[in-house]
């Protein structure tokens, strides 16, 4: 198909005939981004005259977002001429057919975009209190404050947005740390075996025998919590399960012929491990990481709820739920929206994780996921998130 100026003015519009849903979504995303630029032009101009890092990040995200939309809409039209397919691209096509997972992916994309664009999206500064405290506090949702205001007269929407970026950042970074650490430790243990394996896996057993939350509370009580500390601590306490998983996979992979063949070609141990063994464990690692993000966000919220998380006045979902619980009857919106945000985020990551598991697990290849089974799994993830959040609200 030829390129027309329309592709750059309104990408997606020409795909409407063949892919109505994707085309529509593309258009909506495109228009939203442009609307943001137009509505927030004042803020964007400010960015150029000495904006903070997160404003530059937000501006960069807009540009990248627009670029991705154009790319995706072009790809949609020039649907692949059959070329060599990697297992990964086969898995992607399976993943695309997994509706709950695609829904999760969509929600996470929106959340991630919202987190990146927060400085432009948030209508108010999250820590600014109303001028007249009595008049501005506990305002129910209105046009000026779509999610109402809290007991200090702060805008809940802004706080949910800013809290979201904290939660997402902590969740992804902590999982990144945990998964990297767990993969390396597990892979080395499984590949070297012998005393390395024994020592590290007994260490894992030991660490796993502590309840994670208690461990976290202890550490946070010893060190002053900050976002960096919380991230690090969550990362350093979350790698054990991954390392066990990776070790198990590597134990069987190291006996596979292609590892033997790599040794016979004179490749060094680290090269074999990093380039030949670990990529073959990627699928379970990716699934574990995705599910781990949701879980970590939940734990971070629990910590904040207990007052041990991100220090005030920085907004965080857990802390908002905790603060709002005194006023739950009079002003339920203070706890409802951050609670809803937790549920939505955790559920989305769980849905993606389930979809990835189905797409990447070779045993389910071709057969596709059994529909009842899938619903059960997705439902369980969602229920867990809801339960945890409502538990947090309830207490």
């Amino acid at each position, binding site marked *: 198909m030829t390129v027309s100026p329309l592709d750059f003015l309104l990408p997606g519009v020409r795909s409407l005939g063949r892919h109505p849903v994707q085309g529509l979504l593309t258009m909506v995303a495109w228009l939203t981004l442009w609307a943001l630029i137009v509505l927030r032009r004042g803020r964007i101009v400010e960015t150029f005259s000495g904006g903070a890092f997160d404003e530059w990040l937000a501006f960069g995200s807009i540009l990248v977002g627009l670029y991705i939309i154009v790319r995706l809409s072009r790809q949609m039209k020039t649907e692949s001429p059959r070329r*060599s397919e990697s*297992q990964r691209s086969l898995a992607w096509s399976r993943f695309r057919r997994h509706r709950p997972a695609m829904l999760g992916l969509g929600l996470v994309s929106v959340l991630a975009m919202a987190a990146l664009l927060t400085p432009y999206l948030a209508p108010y500064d999250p820590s600014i209190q109303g001028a007249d405290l009595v008049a501005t506090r506990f305002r129910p949702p209105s046009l000026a404050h779509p999610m109402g205001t809290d007991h200090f007269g702060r805008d809940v929407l802004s706080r949910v947005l800013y809290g979201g970026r904290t939660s997402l950042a902590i969740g992804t970074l902590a999982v990144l740390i945990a998964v990297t650490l767990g993969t390396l430790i597990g892979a080395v243990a499984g590949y070297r075996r012998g005393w390395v394996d024994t020592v590290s896996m007994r260490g894992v057993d030991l660490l796993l025998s502590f309840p994670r939350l208690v461990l976290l509370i202890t550490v946070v009580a010893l060190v002053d919590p900050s976002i960096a500390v919380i991230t690090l601590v969550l990362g350093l306490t979350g790698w054990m399960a991954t390392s066990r998983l990776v070790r198990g996979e590597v134990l069987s992979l190291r006996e596979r*012929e292609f590892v*033997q*063949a790599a040794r016979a*070609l*004179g490749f060094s141990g680290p090269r074999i491990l990093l380039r030949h063994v670990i*990529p*073959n464990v990627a699928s379970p690692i990716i699934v574990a990481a995705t599910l781990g993000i949701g879980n970590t966000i939940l734990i971070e919220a629990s910590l904040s709820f207990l007052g041990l998380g991100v220090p005030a006045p920085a907004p965080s979902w857990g802390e908002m739920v905790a603060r709002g619980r005194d006023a739950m009857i009079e002003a339920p919106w203070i706890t409802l929206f951050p609670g809803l945000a937790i549920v939505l985020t955790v559920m989305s990551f769980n849905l993606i994780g389930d979809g990835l598991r189905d797409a990447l697990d070779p045993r389910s290849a071709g057969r596709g996921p059994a529909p009842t089974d899938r619903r059960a799994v997705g439902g369980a993830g969602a229920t867990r998130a809801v339960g945890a959040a409502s538990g947090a609200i309830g207490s």
Partner: protein
Amino acid sequence: MNAPARGVAPLLEVRDLRVRFESAGETAARAVEGVSFTLARGETLGLVGESGCGKSLTALSIPRLVDEPPAQTSADSSILFRGEELVGASQQRLRQLRGAEIGFVFQEPMTSLNPVHRVGDQVAEALWTRGEVSRKQAKTIALELLDRVEFRDPRRAMRAYPHELSGGMRQRALIAMAVACEPSLLIADEPTTALDVTVQAQILELLASLQADTGLALLLISHDLAVVSQVADRVAVMYAGRIVETGTARQVFGSPRHPYTEGLLRAVPTIDGAGGSLAMIPGRVPRPDAWPSGCTFHPRCPYAWDRCETDEPDLREGATSSGWVGARCWLEDEPAKRSGTGYAEVDS
């Protein structure tokens, strides 16, 4: 099995290789028990034997690819490659030799390629990791190699993932990887076993033509006598961790001296039915932790007498009118004992 001295040192000389597996509370399994052979440049040696006779272990021992522990190589064993001792060599030195000087082709083409990388990248990786060529040059050479191993569309094979190739194509790719750095020795451990017969022939032809091109020495391990007889210059027959007979391919297959070889050959059906009914070697290969006393083959040997049960014969080699041959059998001393019907025949 010392080849007749030709004034040149052999490329590979394996002397008294002993590998055993020891585990607590159990008898050590002496899987390879005193194997010796030499391989000259450009020569093809076929190593034949039933499953479990130690031939793969012997092959893996040469580039020291056997995990130690659990395996243990006797300190008296010697593997001289171009005059360099490999038993006890440093890991670093062995890594330099593997791939570059000693190529290895494995039995299972279906699983010997890494499923997550493109075939071209894997062949190229064998080249650029040595640091002698850039990645880009490696790709060019890899393409030439895939062309050399007779891919019909080497460009497409470069981009393909292993699961998109057939078994024969994968084995070609693996051979390309093994010979990428132009090794002087190629060890092929049952390279055709997993392939069907027509593809087998193509792979054997490919190995032979590579050998003719580059003058590499080939150590071909197989349980398939037909495969070995097609390409090998010399043959060594292994049984129970030992070499029981050596000789030229013609010699060993034409007039076997060891009863085991005789039994193996008589168990192979011929297409015209010549040679009468098939024979069967009774019993099975003994376990490596319980080799029989005396000659390890005596419980299955149709000619065995009391001496075979108590004394173990040596592999005695020497020049005969038909070449350099040897057998590990007391019949060498007392040929008159080779009498009677030999192996029982099975109705066919």
